């Protein structure tokens, strides 16, 4: 090609390069700015609505100002306790299966794949399944069935935790160096003891981190609770009745026409966000410090 064409093309290439860089920066700004705006807005609205009453009182009837979401906080606690009791042991067990017993087998690959796919399934579907199985049937042998209950909500959340905990546990266990397992086996330690007391224990910071992530994710879930736990305007910690939950309460109040309830919803959102940010930050901190100190 001629010199002029070459010079032109070179300039075009340089211009394109700069244009793309600009676009990328623009994209970043478009993403980051609203993000920061959202956070700032949440903080502002939430902080101005937050007071001691929020943590100690239950909602007042419509028309009266004040009140809080104490029952929702307690309710979320109950639900998360049930969910963890189901999700954590089974999830960790699944992770142990994938990392220690099934490694390389077709079964383990199928389990891993299915767990990853399950993680992407909308949570409302889990809620519906639990509704059909536990809330609706009137004469079932399942405990607490036949009506909306904290138990059903906890089960729905627990089932959601299992695939997440399973995969993170597996990843953490795989990071334990083979040499450590060999050392345990070489001492004549039975396999079950070696897996639990050595491998799992070595990976435990990471495993706990994974559980925290699952916990934080499930803490913010609303959809599965709409027709399992249902929500409750009053104090309740019983497994057998509908129970309030923080995200559920936020949903109901956000859609209501009352300013007071909006205020409470903002405060609740802030509390939820703070908890989740804490969890995510903690996870990052633990993972960045090196999950397995010295085990290299």
């Amino acid at each position: 090609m001629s010199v002029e064409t070459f010079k032109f093309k070179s300039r075009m290439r340089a211009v394109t390069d700069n244009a793309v860089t600009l676009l990328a920066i623009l994209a970043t700004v478009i993403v980051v700015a609203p993000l920061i705006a959202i956070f700032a807005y949440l903080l502002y609205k939430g902080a101005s609505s937050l007071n001691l009453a929020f943590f100690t009182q239950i909602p007042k009837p419509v028309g009266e100002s004040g009140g809080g979401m104490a029952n929702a906080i307690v309710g979320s606690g109950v639900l998360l306790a049930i969910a963890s009791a189901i999700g954590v042991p089974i999830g960790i067990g699944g992770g142990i299966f994938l990392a220690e017993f099934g490694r390389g087998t077709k079964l383990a690959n199928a389990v891993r794949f299915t767990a990853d796919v399950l993680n992407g399934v909308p949570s409302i579907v889990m809620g519906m399944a639990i509704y059909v199985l536990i809330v609706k049937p009137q004469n079932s042998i399942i405990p607490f069935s036949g009506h909306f209950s904290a138990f059903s909500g906890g089960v729905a959340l627990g089932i959601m935790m299992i695939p997440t905990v399973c995969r993170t546990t597996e990843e953490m266990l795989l990071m334990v160096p083979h040499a450590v397992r060999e050392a345990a086996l070489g001492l004549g330690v039975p396999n079950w003891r070696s897996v639990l007391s050595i491998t799992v224990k070595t990976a435990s910071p990471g495993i706990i981190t994974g559980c925290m992530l699952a916990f934080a994710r499930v803490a913010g879930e609303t959809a599965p609770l709409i027709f399992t736990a249902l929500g409750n305007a009053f104090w309740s910690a019983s497994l057998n009745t509908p129970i309030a939950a923080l995200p559920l309460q936020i949903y109901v109040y956000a859609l209501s026409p009352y300013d007071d309830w909006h205020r409470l919803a903002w405060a609740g959102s802030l509390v939820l966000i703070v908890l989740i940010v804490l969890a995510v930050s903690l996870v990052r901190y633990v993972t960045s410090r090196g999950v397995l100190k010295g085990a290299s």
Partner: protein
Amino acid sequence: MGVGIEVTNLNAWYGTNHTLQDINLNIPANHATALIGPSGCGKSTFVRCLNRMHETNPIARVTGSVRIGDLDIYEGAKPVQIRRRVGMVFQRPNPFPTMSIYDNVASGLKLNGYSNKRVLDEIVEKSLKNSALWEEVKDDLKKKSGASLSGGQQQRLCIARALAVDPEVLLMDEPASALDPVSTSKIEDLIFQLKSQYTIVIVTHNMQQAARVAEKTGFFLNGRLVEFDSTHKIFTNPSDKRTEDYITGRFG
């Protein structure tokens, strides 16, 4: 006191790879026996057959017999039981990272359910003394983690851990290859001390090391045991030409 090891027609495979072929060998009690040979000749595999660690690999297979003392380890007992009587020190030090020095040494006992604290204290002290680590760590037994020691110290910790279960045989797979010369010589001194109480089998790349510590030496090549004789003879007047080629450095 240690016991002798009698190996008869031992063959080992990794999948289709016939790693060990017709090994016949008698390892004397209360001696140190060195196994030398070029990389990949099967000496590590051989040693791992002696405590049934070879079969932890799912594609591994073994035929033949290994008798340790009176016991046929393949027919007469389960791997877990064998490994309590045959201790192993690995090439890279592998202390348990979440445990203190004390717990590391006691792990072979604690994880098998032993809980008598007084006896554990004694055993930990004795094992650390036997592995020449006691003086350096006696003040930090429960405070420092096993992983916070230097490489040479970690390896001695692993030796102490292996000794704590009072094995009859001690297998060492290139125990000093990852260590600096000072640590290496400390470990060689150790082996020298220990062999009066245990039967020691040491795999090594380092022929000088074999000469320094072992009474008998076996030369492996391509999965076969070429020659097994007193160390002196192997290194001064080997019967097999291949042995001679290896020691004089013509290959390996």
